[in-house]
């Protein structure tokens, strides 16, 4: 770590490739840094620049694409990327705050702690704004669960999310678990958090005017997580296991105290503070430098004042440690003692480690010695790249394949096909997962996990919030534009099924190495697809995270943009669930009817599980999707719907079966003459939902009446199965694989 030229050299002298590799900085980027500084950086500066310019912190490949996203409307209170999370006005003096973030690489190496600290990080993003976290969601991707290693990752990640989240007293109310071959070496673990706060009470992550005191509070700083931001920005390989020190260890009890203390501090004594920020990736470096950037100021940090849990730490290690459960408070000088006493009540120690200056320079001291003095503007100006984009020829060929070249489903096989689909991990009940998460604490979870979206009430308000995540990776791989638009559409449909109007999106972009043309094509087209879908639904993107370089020796992961959707339901007591309810209720199919083109099988679970093909066209009709959302919201506001469930993975047959299983009641649905049985039952044409209503309710303006809730069998065209058999296939699939 000592081979750097001394500061002041006009030209970059030799720097070891190994040193640059450790911080994932290219030689070009190193030279850019030298040029901007007018000299070679010191080793602390180089470490700080490396972290801040990493893909994880600097969004080098994704930032130039963000302008596609719609980011504003009258509800949105924050500018994309400027705060720790996005804030949405939900009416009656309240705001919702939300963000989703990845913790993929740490979870690949150390599933329990990787997933646990992923939860910890996203929760801090929410309470750093002064909001009370009220719900967590987790979007997970693993390789096939028949493989022992994937099972270990899955059980470890789920235990880690529960182990951390349950301890915080924040309900984990939703998410996804999807299995696919490409995730074997590189699972995806995305955590989303939703918080609420009274309007006007949020606090910014700014440093404030010169003289403001910077205090660190929470955990002592150790060597854990060194180079975590860098680790998140390179592909996984054989040596990755040696990166285990880059994985942090979580202490949820400390986080709980820190959360209660910070939320209370902002609520009761916001006037003591200029800003509040969490120490996430790149630790004290990114938190303080980014705060200074927002305040257009400089900072001075004294590393000797940072409380440590290990002896002999260098200033470099102190500045780049990613120890968890730490916050930086920018405190008015006259209130330093007050803030100290406030945290003391919670058994937490707050210590002044620096102050805000007016020279625009980030200065780091080790006692008397100045070990870094670089302009904040340099540290926060990573390069931006727009590489060549080219569609992968194999993906194109697979997308061009015509599902009509397959023989239609033999009606005699329909029962068996439905049972196999219900037992597919991507469709099967996720109870095995969510029963390990406390999803009820806070006594606000009106619709619990297992329906299309979770619904939360806010005490004292008539309206409620609906939230879900969706990320149909297989469709994105076949057609990044349409697939990513479908991710937004499915998420919007899911919240609309509860009766909520979709209002805002947070997204996590999980892609492989964007320096390759095929991957950059996936990334850029996905962003375009998501952006257009968000425009069609009036759901701006308020926050998000890009996780690139998701590759292992087995190759790149399936491109997986995950959409977290927030909806507002006008009367929370009217929230609609997935389950059919009463004998005699009539079943309606909203959107297009039974007759579906064979192309709707493209990218479907049916093709994957039954035909062993991940191919075919991916279609999206944004107008039809928007019309369906309107229909669902209006019908449920009028009190017409007794259940609603969207048609997605597994198509109509699976949607009807899931509503029947959840309601523990059978169905009788007849199917008229149709051209393709496989497409009618298992095609995944969008813009459709299965709802039920009191007999006599007329929904003919928005759908077709297809049958009735009755008995204890699933009777659907050629399908005729005892409900118990379907239920057992659906419920027992994950326990059978994972217990």
């Amino acid at each position: 770590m000592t081979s750097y030229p001394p500061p002041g050299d006009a030209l970059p002298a030799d720097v070891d490739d190994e040193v640059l590799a450790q911080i994932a900085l290219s030689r070009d980027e190193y030279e850019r840094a030298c040029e901007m500084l007018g000299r070679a950086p010191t080793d602390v500066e180089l470490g700080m620049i490396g972290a801040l310019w990493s893909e994880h912190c600097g969004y080098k490949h994704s930032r130039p694409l963000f302008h596609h996203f719609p980011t504003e409307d009258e509800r949105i209170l924050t500018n994309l990327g400027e705060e720790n999370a996005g804030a949405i006005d939900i009416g009656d003096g309240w705001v919702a705050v939300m963000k989703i973030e990845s913790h993929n690489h740490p979870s690949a190496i150390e599933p329990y702690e990787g997933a646990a600290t992923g939860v910890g990080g996203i929760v801090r993003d929410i309470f750093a704004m002064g909001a009370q976290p009220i719900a967590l969601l987790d979007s997970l991707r693993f390789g096939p669960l028949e493989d022992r290693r994937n099972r270990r990752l899955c059980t470890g990640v789920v235990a880690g999310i529960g182990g951390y989240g349950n301890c915080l007293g924040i309900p984990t109310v939703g998410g996804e678990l999807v299995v696919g071959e490409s995730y074997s070496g590189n699972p995806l673990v995305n955590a989303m958090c939703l918080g609420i706060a009274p309007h006007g009470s949020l606090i910014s992550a700014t440093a404030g005017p010169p003289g403001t005191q910077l205090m660190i509070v929470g955990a002592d700083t150790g060597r854990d997580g060194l180079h975590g931001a860098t680790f998140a920005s390179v592909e996984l390989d054989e040596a990755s296991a040696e990166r285990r020190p880059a994985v942090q260890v979580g202490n949820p009890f400390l986080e709980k105290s820190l959360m209660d203390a910070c939320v209370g501090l902002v609520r009761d004594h916001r006037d003591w503070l200029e800003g509040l920020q969490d120490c996430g990736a790149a630790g004290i470096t990114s938190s303080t430098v980014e705060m200074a950037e927002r305040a257009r100021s400089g900072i001075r940090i004294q590393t000797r004042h940072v409380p440590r849990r290990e002896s002999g730490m260098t200033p470099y290690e102190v500045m780049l440690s990613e120890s968890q459960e730490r916050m930086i408070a920018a405190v008015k000088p006259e209130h330093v003692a007050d803030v100290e006493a406030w945290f003391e009540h919670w058994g937490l120690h707050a210590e002044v480690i620096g102050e805000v200056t007016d020279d625009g320079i980030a200065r780091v001291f080790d006692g008397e010695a100045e070990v870094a003095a670089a302009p904040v503007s340099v540290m926060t100006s990573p390069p931006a790249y727009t590489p060549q984009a080219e569609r992968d020829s194999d993906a194109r060929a697979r997308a061009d394949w015509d599902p009509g070249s397959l023989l239609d489903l033999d009606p005699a096989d329909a029962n068996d096909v439905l049972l196999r689909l219900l037992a597919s991990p991507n469709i099967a009940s996720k109870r095995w997962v969510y029963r390990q998460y406390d999803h009820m604490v806070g006594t606000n979870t009106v619709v619990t996990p297992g329906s299309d979206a979770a619904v939360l009430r806010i005490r004292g308000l008539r309206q409620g919030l609906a939230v879900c995540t969706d990320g149909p990776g297989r469709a994105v791989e076949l057609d990044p534009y349409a697939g990513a638009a479908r991710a937004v559409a499915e998420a919007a449909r899911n919240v609309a099924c509860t009766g909520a109007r979709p209002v805002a999106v947070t997204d996590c972009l999980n892609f492989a190495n964007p320096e390759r043309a095929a991957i950059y094509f996936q990334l850029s087209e996905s962003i375009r697809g998501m952006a257009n879908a968000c425009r069609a639904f009036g759901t701006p993107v308020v926050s998000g995270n890009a996780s690139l370089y998701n590759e292992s020796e087995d190759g790149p992961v399936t491109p997986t943009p995950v959409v977290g959707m927030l909806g507002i339901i006008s009367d929370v007591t009217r929230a609609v669930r997935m389950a059919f309810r009463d004998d005699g209720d009539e079943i309606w199919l909203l959107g297009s009817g039974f007759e579906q083109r064979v192309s709707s099988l493209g990218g479907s679970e049916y093709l994957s599980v039954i035909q062993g093909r991940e191919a075919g066209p991916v279609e999206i009709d944004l107008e039809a999707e928007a019309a369906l959302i309107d229909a669902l919201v209006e019908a449920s506001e009028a009190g017409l719907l007794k259940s609603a469930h969207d048609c997605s993975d597994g198509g109509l047959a699976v949607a009807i079966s899931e509503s029947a299983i959840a309601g523990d009641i059978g169905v009788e649905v007849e199917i008229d003459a149709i051209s393709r049985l496989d497409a009618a039952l298992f095609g995944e044409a969008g813009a459709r939902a299965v709802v039920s209503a009191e007999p006599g309710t007329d929904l003919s303006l928005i759908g077709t009446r297809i049958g009735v809730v009755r008995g204890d069998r699933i009777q659907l065209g050629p399908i005729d199965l005892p409900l118990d058999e379907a239920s057992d296939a659906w419920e027992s699939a994950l326990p059978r694989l994972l217990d």
Partner: protein
Amino acid sequence: MRFAVLVFPGTWSDWDCVHALEDLGQTAERVWHRETALDSYDGVILPGGFSYGDHLRCGAIARFSPVMSALERFAASGKPVFGSCNGFQILCEAGLLPGVLQRNASMQFRCQPQRLSVERSDTGFTNTCESGQIVQLPVSHGEGQYFAPSEVLDELEDAGRVLFRYHGNNPNGSLRDIAGIMNPMGNVLGMMPHPERASDELLGGTDGNYIWRSIIEHWG
């Protein structure tokens, strides 16, 4: 009635208990664990959570909190003390109730609705129930497997101090399906399930109100 809802670092069902009691027209105040007087209250609730992060053992550190000696005096005075989840664990660690709560037999956290049988209706905590009634309350814990030596279990059974048993399925492997027990004086109840999560029709059930109403009926 005026209830104290004890809050230790890591407690998280405190607000849920406050809301459930307030919704029934009672007064409920959150009381920080450093308080040393509880005399002004008519009842004390020990809510769920992970006091001190379950470090060492669930409830093992909370029992040394300053408020605990006041709690012991309060319990000795005959006024009602109710602990659920981590509150039950703390009552056991503090010796106010016998036995211990171990890791669930599944070795996994369990959060789910749970049916319970009410074993007796002639107590301060169950007088609004029928004996043998089945109620549904959520469970949410990783360490709820009730364990005690068989002579202690026999003593509990003989004295009619087992108030709730898991019905239909046992979510944690508790011995003799025990879900909630009472002290000999009949004024301290500990149970793993969460009545405060079943106190609102909007959340799918109000069976928890049987317990709150019984307390109010008997001591109010």
